């Protein structure tokens, strides 16, 4: 018996036309873990999910569920259940029939089917719609029915393909929380595909970031947010300020980078020797850590990275203001700051400012 509910070993998918959809995907998922797959559309996250479900053939590599090889097993014989983006409720069956279908196919006794269907209907609180058909259901109700239909078969792994994509923002929020609680209570492993980074970060125990068929990073949400490992992740996740430069040197776990603003420091995301001295890198600073100060005040404090620019606009939005700062040689940066702080410092458009952050908060990634 393996400790892992799911293992992907160099999973690869090439479509018949020769398009590479997923490349060398390695992942080990512990029992009861909630994994989010996130990335732009076409990055291969849904294809990977469909390979796990058995709806897409695997070109090479292996798929193990609880230590058993399922690489070539057909979809109907896999211990997984899938929740589809459009829910795919069977329109000619009632809600209860939809839920019972998977159990009936497994040849369960009618009494057991009824007991289990009743139980899951109770859990998801959909008793009032048990005899309704798909055409009568709202988006949120369809979502619950499709969850019930998947969970009633007691799968080892629940696969969710953008299940919240079709819901409005408020409902999304509440179902996100419900899903998370449900998953914790049931202890079932969830693989959750989404294109929304906030969703991936708030739901996942670990997050897999994908881009053009490749896995960019697999990390816990906080680490992903604060320590991106590639320029793609730095741009896709969070609100990072990204400054390009050349690697100066590595020492004591710090990297120094030569940039247009002078030397900046940060924690490297790569191993020593991976990037040669003088190689292209980016300094990534999460905007939450960026302070804005009138020019000159930031000087002479050690352990900070500082860059200088000119304020171009200040947009107040209630308590906070968005300050746009023009920087020489790169795109302007928008900083969020408290209104009283900006007004207290007497900053106005045209003022010279320094932007600074603690060097230990910054990450240096290979370009």
């Amino acid at each position, binding site marked *: 018996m393996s400790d892992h509910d799911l293992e992907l070993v160099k999973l690869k998918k090439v479509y018949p036309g020769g398009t590479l959809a997923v490349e060398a995907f390695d992942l080990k998922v512990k029992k009861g873990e909630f994994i989010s797959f996130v990335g732009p559309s076409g990055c291969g996250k849904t294809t990977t999910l469909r390979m796990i479900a058995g709806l897409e053939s695997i070109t090479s590599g292996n798929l193990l569920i609880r230590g058993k090889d399922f690489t070539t097993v057909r979809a109907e014989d896999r211990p997984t259940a899938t929740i589809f983006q459009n829910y795919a409720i069977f329109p000619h069956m009632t809600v209860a029939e939809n839920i019972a279908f998977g159990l009936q196919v497994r040849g369960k006794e009618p009494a057991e089917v009824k007991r289990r269907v009743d139980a899951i209907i109770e859990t998801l609180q959909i008793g*009032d719609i048990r005899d309704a058909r798909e055409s009568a259901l709202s988006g949120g109700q369809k979502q619950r029915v499709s969850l019930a239909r998947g969970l009633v078969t007691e799968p080892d792994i629940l696969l969710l393909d953008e299940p919240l994509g079709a819901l409005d923002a408020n409902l999304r929020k509440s179902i996100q929380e419900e899903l998370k609680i449900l998953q914790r209570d049931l202890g079932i492993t969830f693989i959750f595909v989404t294109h929304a980074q906030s969703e991936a970060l708030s739901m996942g125990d670990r997050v897999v970031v994908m881009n053009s068929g490749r896995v960019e990073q697999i990390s816990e949400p906080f680490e992903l947010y604060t320590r991106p490992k590639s320029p793609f992740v730095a741009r896709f996740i969070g609100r990072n300020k990204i400054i390009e430069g050349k690697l100066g040197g590595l020492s004591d776990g710090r990297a120094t980078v030569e940039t247009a603003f002078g030397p900046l420091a940060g924690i490297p995301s790569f191993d020593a020797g991976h990037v040669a001295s003088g190689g292209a890198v980016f300094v990534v600073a999460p905007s939450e850590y960026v302070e804005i100060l009138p020019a000159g005040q930031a000087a002479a404090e050690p352990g900070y990275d500082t860059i200088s620019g000119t304020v171009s606009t200040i947009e107040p939005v209630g308590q906070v203001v968005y300050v746009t700062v023009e920087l020489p040689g790169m795109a302007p940066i928008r900083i969020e700051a408290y209104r009283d702080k900006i007004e207290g410092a007497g900053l106005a458009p045209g003022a010279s400012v320094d932007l600074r952050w603690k060097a230990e908060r910054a990450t240096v990634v290979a370009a």
Partner: protein
Amino acid sequence: MQSNNLLRTILGAYTGLFILFLYGPFIVMGILSFQAGPEGGPQFPIIEWSTYWYQHVFGLTPPSRVAPLPIGEALLRSLTLAFATMVVSTVLGTLTAQGFRRNFRGSGFVFYLVVLGMMVPGVLLGLGMALVADQVGIDRTWWGTAFVLHVVYTFPFAFLVMLAIFNRFDKSVEEAAWALGVPPGRTFRKVTFPMIFPGVLSAMLFAFTLSYDEFPRTLFTAGSDVTMPIAIYGTFAVEIHPNIFAFGVLTTLFSFALLSVYGVLMTLSVRRAKTAAVQEEIA
């Protein structure tokens, strides 16, 4: 405004003509079918209103110089043939359309090959089939050579109907079934088929009606035991009596009955979903 009125007039006239030509022949036939018999002929004026020719169709009149329509067996043959054609064409059409849901090599070629069956002129196909049958030494029969041509002719219609249905079919419902552990065969029976059933009904209706009144392909291939359209044609090759009109009226009523059954089945399958929706709204 001016041009709007003009357009309205033209459209009105067009609709009037359309209805006239659609129903005119049938109405004239319907009126003439009530001509007095056996002396009354297929022309106005009506000598006297009577149901003589209806009785004549069913052989309830005393023998006269007008021979009874030879339709008893022909009608049975036509219905049997139409039914068999409907079953075979609908099954084939549905399965072929199902096959076309995946792109396979040569699918374009196969598509045109199938559709050719309804494009080739019927007379040519009938004549060609007759020649081939004679060469090979197959007897020409309504249940053999004619049946094959009926399938060749109606199968493309059923196929195109089902292709359109599958085009709008949401594949993820089938995938959901597989993911729930339902094998493909059972998925087709329990999920796909119930969802495409209205389309299957339409395909059946097409196949049945097209086969039922098929003439040119049948003329050369049915052999000596003819189907109804050929039998009817045979009678008015000599002389036309209003008994044919009476029969025409009966056939049309039969077709309407068939359409009504189709309509009722359609409404039922649509309403089932709707009722659930309404109940939900009330609750």
